């Protein structure tokens, strides 16, 4: 089974994955990345100020695939 690498981009910058994880195919790797984004989004909302999060899935033959969560805090009536 192929090994997929998940680079995480968050408020602290890029965290390249040097270990990787083995999945049956890219679809299974995407399911794992979505789960990871759900965990990390929850944590980021509790701990950090809102920042975008993304995971880039790499492997030798397919991809890359980017998964992105965008977070914004808007104040539409703020006069500045």
């Amino acid at each position: 089974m192929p090994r997929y690498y998940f680079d995480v981009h968050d408020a602290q910058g890029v965290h390249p994955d040097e270990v990787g994880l083995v999945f049956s195919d890219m679809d299974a790797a995407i399911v794992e990345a979505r789960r990871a984004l759900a965990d990390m989004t929850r944590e980021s909302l509790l701990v950090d100020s809102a920042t975008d999060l993304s995971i880039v899935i790499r492997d030798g033959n397919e991809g890359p695939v980017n998964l992105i969560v965008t977070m914004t805090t808007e104040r539409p009536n703020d006069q500045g």
Partner: protein
Amino acid sequence: MADERVLATFLRKLEARDVLSDEERATLVACAGDEVLFPAGTDLVREGARPDTSMLVIDGFTSRYRDAPDGSRQIMAIHVPGDFVDLHSLLLKEMDHSVGALSACRVMRFPHGRLRALTETHPHLTRLLWLMTLIDSSIHREWLAAAAHPAPEQIAHLICELYFRLEITGLIGADRSFYLPLTQTELGEALGLSAVHVNRSLQQLRSEGLFTWQSQTIHILDWDALQRRAAFDDRYLHLVREPR
């Protein structure tokens, strides 16, 4: 017939919490049955089984787990050498979870008939066996409470816990290192986190200089800072030696 050295890790666990007489140590040894080896990845006992022995792991690491219908696994506990992993089956009869070998394991089987006889003749030893299952539940409570914290803290907390539990049985190296046969996926299954999130959190802890984890060995670099990072309080491990 087992001798006392074989049960050394277990006896040290008991003696961290109370005093054992020579007669009590001999009684525990006489209760032991045969020794069995389990390769890594095999099950010591499966959910639904009705064992007639309870297993004490002399060497090796095990997990208590359940498999969900979707194929995912939840690890509810990690056991270290010297833990009596299914003392529960003496009274619960039917296993409500499985116990799997995380590494190769050497196990001592205690026939239920002998354990039952022990409870009838040795009230103090009975209380100590009861204490072991109470400490198991205390650890479950701590894991539930820890699950509310961010992933790096959860990982730091587990490393601190394993350090204390292994230290009692003399399994911590002089340079604060210990053997931990766990994959990142298994660590995620234990903490309820995705493996990718575990990997990212481990990188963060590494960049903070708290510990390294290579070739199944944890090496703690800054023990005080690691305990602060985890907000670790060892009270739930009940490491006080007093009459029980």
